[in-house]
């Protein structure tokens, strides 16, 4: 039988060693562990933040989440301004091999001259240059495919204005950094601009994202801005205005089309204009939104307000007789005249129809200046229209206490007061309806912006009628409408403003410009009118600055433009004709079509 030997107690170990040796080794080992523990403790507590940050840096990354700038749309959803991703192409000049033949391809793709590219890459003092910014993605991809050392690219956004010069003044533009510089892009910068978001992710060794951490800041896209503009009417208004400014060899022109029921701006055009996509050669004149920011003397277009005042006072009726046969009226040291002497007595209606300065002034002088001032103020003159557009001009209307009699007389026919074209168009809303002043609006409200289908509706009149501020009695408005129709008629001052098939009404204005405080022989021809007169749907205001072909009367210059713009707009809005017209459709066609 084999005796079992305990493995743990071999003979060798039974030899006695000196005790201190084992104790020494033991304490050495303990000390090592203590040192290790100490280091671990130190790393866990004292240097933990640093180490954690270092670790995270090796696998975590914060990604920027892009936010889109809001679009600007017309009332039917047609895009007026939008943002698209683009790239900026840059280079480290010292790393680019200038003898590389592929640089020619880069120059061609970027549409810059090879010499210019060469110059930029050899600029001595620069270690980094942009070769071109806002390059479209396709081009950028092709450049990337060339794989040239030292040339790289970054993502950015490019603002695009597909409608070009047609709505340039309304929409404005942004700078290269996507910040609004002009127009609505400027005044609604905070609404349109989005808020960039960020997200923390974990990446693997190849750079691929393998998981997200909970730190997410959602990007907020900018809000879309929906305008009241109808791009079809806008386009035709713009074309009509452009043609007219050129035909009359004028300095400039502006036109506004308002919805007479809601006060919404359907079109607002200016000439000269500019292409917001190509802004290298811009002048201040091109940038000016004359319809909103420029002031002019309205002239005779203001006479209807004097007529309305006279009717409101109860002292006058449309048939009241006025005498302007003398051809001049002397007030103090000044004398006012009519541009065409009128040899007969006139009714109040005829004073407006024939546009008599003397008749109008006589009416005004028989009424208190304060009432006159109050009417003009409540029609919106002397205050900037709250359309939300930057730089809207308030115009000038002096307080009535400072009016001298001659001033009172001249203001009655539109001199000594300055207005913007939009103000003028808006003020006419009191005649188009039941005497209420409607707010001129350029935007759809939030409710209207939400949930409307993006399609062009042929029946544009789907908005509820807006209620305005009462200014004059409905009877007065109706009486003034009759005068406006007479003024635009064959015996009035603007027979050329007629639109076939529709009854129109409007008032001409011709004023000389003031330079250095005195009137000079430069004219502003204007026309403000509405149609159809049976139930006005639109108000059109046109202003032509310095026509230079010899003609300068509002009726000759602005009347025909009104006719074209109003005719186009009424057709676009599918408004039924209210005037008799001769049909050119043969009766057979009419019958067979009608019988279907």
């Amino acid at each position: 039988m084999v005796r079992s030997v305990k493995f743990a107690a071999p003979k060798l170990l039974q030899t006695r060693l000196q005790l201190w040796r084992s104790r020494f080794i033991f304490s050495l080992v303990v000390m090592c562990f203590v040192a290790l523990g100490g280091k671990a403790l130190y790393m866990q507590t004292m240097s933990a933040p640093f180490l954690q940050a270092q670790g995270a840096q090796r696998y975590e990354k914060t990604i920027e989440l892009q936010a889109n700038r809001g679009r600007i749309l017309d009332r039917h959803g047609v895009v007026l301004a939008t943002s698209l991703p683009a790239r900026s192409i840059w280079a480290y000049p010292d790393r680019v091999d200038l003898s590389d033949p592929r640089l020619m391809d880069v120059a061609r793709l970027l549409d810059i001259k090879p010499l210019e590219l060469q110059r930029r890459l050899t600029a001595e003092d620069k270690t980094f240059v942009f070769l071109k910014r806002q390059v479209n993605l396709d081009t950028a991809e092709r450049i990337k495919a060339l794989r040239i050392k030292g040339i790289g690219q970054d993502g950015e956004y490019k603002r695009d204005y597909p409608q070009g010069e047609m709505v340039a003044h309304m929409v404005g533009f942004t700078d290269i950094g996507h910040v609004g510089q002009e127009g609505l892009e400027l005044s609604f910068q905070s609404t349109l601009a989005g808020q960039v978001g960020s997200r923390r992710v974990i990446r693997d060794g190849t750079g691929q994202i393998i998981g997200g951490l909970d730190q997410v800041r959602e990007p907020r896209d900018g809000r879309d801005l929906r305008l009241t503009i109808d791009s079809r009417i806008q386009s035709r208004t713009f074309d009509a205005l452009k043609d007219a400014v050129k035909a009359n060899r004028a300095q400039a022109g502006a036109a506004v089309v308002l919805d007479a029921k809601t006060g919404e701006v359907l079109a607002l055009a200016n000439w000269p204009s500019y292409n917001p996509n190509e802004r290298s050669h811009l002048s201040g004149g091109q940038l000016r939104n004359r319809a909103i920011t420029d002031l002019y003397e309205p002239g005779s277009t203001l006479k209807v307000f004097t007529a309305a005042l006279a009717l409101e006072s109860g002292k006058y009726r449309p048939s009241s007789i006025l005498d302007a046969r003398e051809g001049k009226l002397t007030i103090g040291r000044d004398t006012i005249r009519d541009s065409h002497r009128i040899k007969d007595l006139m009714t109040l209606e005829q004073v407006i129809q024939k546009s008599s300065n003397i008749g109008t002034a006589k009416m005004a002088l028989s009424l208190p200046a304060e009432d006159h001032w109050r009417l003009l103020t409540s029609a919106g003159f002397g205050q900037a229209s709250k359309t939300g557009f930057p730089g809207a001009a308030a115009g000038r209307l002096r307080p009535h206490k400072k009016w001298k009699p001659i001033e009172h007389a001249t203001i009655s026919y539109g001199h000594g007061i300055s207005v913007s074209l939009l103000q003028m168009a808006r003020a006419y809303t009191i005649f188009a309806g039941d005497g209420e002043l409607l707010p001129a609006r350029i935007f759809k409200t939030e409710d209207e912006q939400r949930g409307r289908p993006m399609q062009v509706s042929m029946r544009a009149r789907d908005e509820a009628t807006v209620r305005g501020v009462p200014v004059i009695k409905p009877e007065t408005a109706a009486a003034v409408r009759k005068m406006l129709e007479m003024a635009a008629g064959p015996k009035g001052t603007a027979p050329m403003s007629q639109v076939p098939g529709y009854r129109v009404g409007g008032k001409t204005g011709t004023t000389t410009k003031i330079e250095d405080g005195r009137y000079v022989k430069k004219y502003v021809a204007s026309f403000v009118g509405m149609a159809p007169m049976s139930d006005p749907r639109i108000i059109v205001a046109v202003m032509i600055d310095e026509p230079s072909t010899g003609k300068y009367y509002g009726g000759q210059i602005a009347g025909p433009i009104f006719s074209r713009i109003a005719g186009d707009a009424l057709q676009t809005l599918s408004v039924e004709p209210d005037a008799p017209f001769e049909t050119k459709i043969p009766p057979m066609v009419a019958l067979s079509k009608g019988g279907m």
Partner: protein
Amino acid sequence: MSARVVARLNVLLAAVLVVAGLLLVSSQHRARKLSTELERAQGQMRELDVRYSQLQLEVSRLAKASLIDGRVRKELNMISLSPERTLYLKEPN
């Protein structure tokens, strides 16, 4: 409880531990794969978004009223609508 039972239980628990560890590894791997896929899909979504806005812009550019107006007049010889050339039909009440 006898020592035998405890030993068996230990073996069992060790096995469970190993299996659980393996499952954890595989599920983490799947999660990573899925999140990569999600990233790719989101990237695709952004690309399509961009494409969509590009197309929308193109539609706007091609549907520009002045462009259509010009081509319709020149190429199709059409003229503006006017009341005398329009047949107005009354909607029966």
